[in-house]
Every structure is written in structure tokens, then in C-alpha cells.
């Protein structure tokens, strides 16, 4: 057997190019479905982990999936808005702690998440550098967002305008980076967190400008009556919130009607959660309450169905490749007829020729197997990171 292996190895070494192509084909076909399986399992785990750590979610009636994806993974698809009143509604029930979310704007490609400090407690987010949100206009960066932006505490980050041609719309706000979060291995790592009021300032619902009662430029004043001064568009609006101009920022009207995208409800206990869900069952209620885990589980069921189709496709491709490999071996045997005849003429038995060919196939399969195991090992070790890169950003 050693002689068969030796001769087979010599043949393989001499025909490196052919062998490499064969090994690569076999490895690819074997490893692709296995890597896919590993990544899908890991993505399921990560998606479910995030969903299961979010007890209840309240948002506008409509797509539950959009609501969950936007609130959990800060997806670009923004659901229908609700108002801050929804948060008050939950608070008033005394059944759960409401955490408002306003995920609509971006800063240099990273989602701006307007929320309250309770969100950081819910997600167990800790500050790695700097300090938490303390002032209007502050932002806290997720670990990866900070790394990719190359920013740290003290730097400034400008929000992106929602639409370049919307002159009357969102003004860019220069935010001060107060801190950077420790890595959390979730969508939070790629987010820019601001106080919910800062998000409203970005939208233009809150703003700051010079005091019209004290301005020396009379051309700014349109009309001055007792207790009221009307200014024109020449009035200087602040695009950055500082300690000096902080007092000049204000919100017009009732903030309970200001928009948010969702409210995370953290029930006091299981019973409170059930009771709270009951409060949103009215048909004419404009809001819905969802169990994120159920929504994501439904999404995963769809992925399972897609996976079955993928598995079938890969099996067919694998079968075709296996047939092609058999064809390669068969054609190779034909091309090697002269060599086989020579070995036979020298006195070799047919069984020995068979053993040599078998040894070649075994070596090729073994090398492919080892390569396959190595690739799988690397994929398995990096599955968590890979899935985050593929699904989180």
C-alpha cells in the first residue's frame, strides 16, 4: 500500500495544477453548505438574542417587521411615526417602563438613535471613554461607529441632512461626542445615541437662535408688540448647541405630540406584560404592541424556507460537480491508458493499478477534507463577527 501511496503522491505532485483545481472544486462544494449552515445558525442566534432581550415594542399599526427591524437593528426602513404620547400612555398604566425611540436620522451613514438613559440600562451599555449624555446636543457613539469615524470624546459629529433639496427641512446639527460605548456586539455598536430631545432638534422641532428681544440688528425685527417680537428669516439660528447658547434652545408646543418611531415597554413582570398587551387590542387603536421575539421568529421561519431552497440548489450543484469530477477522473483514465499499459507491460497487476488510482482519489479527498475542516474551523471561529458584518453592517 505504501508503494501505491508513494506513486500516487508522485503523480499528484507532478500534476499540481490539475490537482489544485480538483481539490478546490471538492472543497468548495463541501464547504459552502456547511459555512452557510454555520452562518445561518449564528445569525439566528444573534437575531433572537436581540429580540428576546426586548420585551415589548409599541409602534404605529402597520408592518410589525419594519417596526421590529427599525427599533432593534436600526434598519433604514422607518415605520409610521407615533407621538411621545404613546410613551406617556404606557407610563400611566404603571405596568411597564417606557423607553421612547426615535430612529430616523443619520450622521455620516450611522443611524442616530434618539432615546432616554433607560435604554442604556436595558441594553447594559457601558461607557468606555468619556461620559454619558448630559446635555442637549451631546451624542454617545457605539464602539464600531467611533472606530470607523475615528472619533472620541470632545470631537464633533454633524448630522446628515435628510434631503439635500429640502431647504425648509432638517438642518444639520453639530453634535458634541460626549462618550464612546464599550463594544456590545450588536446593532448598538454602529449607532449614534442622542437624547430624544436632541433628535427633535435635528428635525427642527426644537431650535435655538439669538434673543430677538436683545438683538442690535433692527432689520431682523418684523414686528414688535408688547410681550411679543416677530423676527424674519435673517434671524441667526444656532447649528451647534453649546453651554453659551443652550438657554436659547426651546421647543414650541406640547412635546407629547412630538414624533417618535417606537416605545420599548419593559413590563414590571409577566402579568403586567400580558395586561399591557391587552390594552392595545382595540380595533380602532392607532398603535400596536408586538413581541419582538415572535416577529423575528416569523422572519427566521422565512429564512428557514429560503434555506431549504438554498440547500436544494447547493445539493444539485454538488451533484453536478460530483458528476463532473467523476467525468474528470474517467477522462483522466483514458488519457492515462498509455501509462497504464506501460505499467501493465512492466508486470503490474490490475489490482495494483486500481490501488494506485484509488490512492490518488483518497489523497485528493483527504486534502480536500483537511482544507474543508480548516475553512470550516476559521468560519466557525469568526461566525459571530462575520454575521455581524453581514447583517449588522
Amino acid at each position, binding site marked *: 500500500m505504501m508503494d501505491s501511496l508513494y506513486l500516487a503522491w508522485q503523480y499528484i505532485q*507532478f500534476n499540481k495544477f490539475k490537482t489544485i483545481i480538483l481539490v478546490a472544486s471538492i472543497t468548495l462544494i463541501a464547504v459552502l453548505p456547511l459555512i452557510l449552515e454555520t452562518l445561518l445558525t449564528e445569525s439566528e442566534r444573534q437575531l433572537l438574542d436581540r429580540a428576546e432581550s426586548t420585551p415589548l415594542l409599541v409602534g404605529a399599526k402597520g408592518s410589525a417587521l419594519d417596526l421590529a427591524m427599525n427599533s432593534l437593528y436600526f434598519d433604514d426602513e422607518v415605520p409610521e411615526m407615533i407621538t411621545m404620547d404613546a410613551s406617556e400612555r404606557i407610563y400611566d398604566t404603571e405596568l411597564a417602563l417606557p423607553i421612547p425611540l426615535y430612529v430616523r436620522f443619520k450622521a455620516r451613514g450611522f443611524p442616530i438613535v434618539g432615546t432616554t438613559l433607560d435604554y442604556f440600562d436595558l441594553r447594559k451599555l457601558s461607557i468606555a471613554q468619556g461620559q454619558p449624555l448630559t446635555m442637549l446636543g451631546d451624542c454617545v457613539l457605539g464602539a464600531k461607529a467611533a472606530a470607523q469615524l475615528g472619533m472620541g470624546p470632545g470631537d464633533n459629529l454633524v448630522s446628515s441632512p435628510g434631503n439635500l433639496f429640502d431647504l425648509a427641512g432638517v438642518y444639520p446639527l453639530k453634535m458634541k461626542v460626549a462618550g464612546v460605548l464599550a463594544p456590545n456586539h450588536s446593532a448598538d455598536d454602529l449607532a449614534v445615541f442622542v437624547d430624544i430631545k436632541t433628535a427633535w432638534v435635528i428635525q427642527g422641532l426644537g431650535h435655538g437662535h439669538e434673543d430677538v428681544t436683545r438683538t442690535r440688528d433692527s432689520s431682523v425685527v418684523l414686528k414688535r408688540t408688547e410681550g411679543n417680537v416677530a423676527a424674519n428669516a435673517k434671524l441667526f439660528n444656532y447649528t451647534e448647541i453649546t453651554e453659551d447658547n443652550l438657554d436659547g434652545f426651546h421647543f414650541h408646543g406640547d412635546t407629547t405630540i412630538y414624533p417618535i418611531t417606537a416605545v420599548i415597554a419593559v413590563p414590571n413582570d409577566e402579568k403586567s406584560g400580558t395586561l399591557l398587551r391587552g390594552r392595545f387590542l382595540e380595533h380602532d387603536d392607532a398603535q400596536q404592541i408586538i413581541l419582538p421575539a415572535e416577529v423575528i421568529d416569523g422572519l427566521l421561519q422565512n429564512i428557514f424556507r429560503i434555506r431549504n431552497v438554498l440547500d436544494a440548489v447547493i445539493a444539485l450543484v454538488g451533484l453536478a460537480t460530483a458528476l463532473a469530477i467523476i467525468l474528470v477522473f474517467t477522462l483522466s483514465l483514458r488519457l492515462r491508458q498509455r501509462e497504464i499499459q506501460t505499467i501493465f*507491460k*512492466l*508486470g503490474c497487476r490490475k489490482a495494483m493499478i486500481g490501488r494506485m488510482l484509488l490512492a490518488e482519489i483518497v489523497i485528493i479527498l483527504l486534502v480536500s477534507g483537511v482544507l474543508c475542516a480548516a475553512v470550516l474551523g476559521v468560519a466557525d471561529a469568526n461566525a459571530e463577527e462575520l454575521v455581524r458584518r453581514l447583517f449588522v453592517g
Partner: protein
Amino acid sequence: MHEAADSAGSAIISIHDLKFRYPHGEFRLSIPEFAVTQGEKVAIVGPSGSGKTTLLNLLAGILPPPSSVPGGLIEVGRTAINELNDAGRRDFRIRNIGFIFQDFELLDYLTVLDNILHPYRITGALKLSDEVRRRATHLTEQMGIAGHLKKHPGTLSHGEKQRAAICRALLPNPSLILVDEATGNLDPTNKTRILDLLFESVAGHDATLVAVTHDHELLPRFDRVVDFQAFKSGGGS
């Protein structure tokens, strides 16, 4: 130049009433009597298609022997080749016969040394030992290819390839060496040199040489020349 075969008691090859034909062809070979004595150097000549190569293949047991002829006999040494089965003929061939082919029949993927040692790796009949390796090295030194042992045949000249093929045939110390147009692919200088080396080696091993050749210039170097036109044959070679 046809001489009668000496069928004395020291004959290493004895053929009696050989009648052969390929299963699906017109070719027929008929040899009533043919003998070669131990240590003799015999050249076989004849036109293409007269059955020279067929005879060598029958002697080496590469072709299945004719079994349907009552009384027919192909004997090499004291072994009746036509009575051996496939495995028996292979074992006999690898132990007793060195075959040098016209096209060298070296394997491209093996080095020169591995090609020479190849018969030892493909059968249990020969045992590859350090002594065999030493003998192989010595043979290649004699043949002037000791510097090419790690090269592959594709990088060698025709002459060097044929020398490697001769080393492979001689290494197991066969008592009978069959040569099929060994110099057909060589230039005149190489031809003379290869034949010198072959004859020296055969003499050194006290082996018997049966060589098929078309080159009449070489015939004086042989003890005897057999012209195959004398035998009844037809079809291919």
C-alpha cells in the same frame, strides 16, 4: 543471413509449433521451431507486419499465449509460458525478463531514479532494498546518467531516456532481455553508444539478448540474425 536455430539443451527460449492470431484481426504468426541459447545475442529482422514485436510480446507474456494449438509450446528457461495464467506470466516477466521498448515507456511524473526502481514498486515479486538502490546508482553511473536521477523524463534527451529505460530493464538482473527497436529513435552517435552500453551490460550480467531491429548496420554485432520473412505471417506487426 538467416541461420538455423541451435536448439541444444542450453536453450533459454524454445518455441515449438507456435500459431498465433489476434482475436479481431487478420494477422497470423506461425513459427514451427525457434530456439535461443543462454548468453546468445540474437537479432530479429524482417519487414513491418512480419510479427517481430508480437513474438517479443508472446515471449514476455504480455500477449496471452495461444492455447488452442495442441502441442504448441513457448518455453523461457524451463517455464512454459503458454501454461501460465495472467498473474503467473506477470510474475514470471517481472522476475526474469527485461523489456526495452522503442518509445522508452518512462512515466513522466516519476524521476529517472523512480522510473528505474518502478518495477520494484508495482509488484510484490521484487523487493526494493538498499542493495537494489545501490545497484541502481551503479547502473546509472555505468550508463552515464547518474547526474539526472532527480530529473523527470520530460527534461531528458532521447539518448538519456533510452539509457534510463535500459537501467530499468537490467536492474532486476533478468536472464532474458528483449529489445524492441531500442535505437529507432536515436541519432547515429547515440545509437552506437547505447548499443555499446547495452552489449556491455548484457555481457556483464550473462544475460541473453533478443533484439528486434530494422537497422542492418547493427547486425554484425549479434551472434545470430533471424529473418522473420521465413515465418508465415501477415497483417500487422
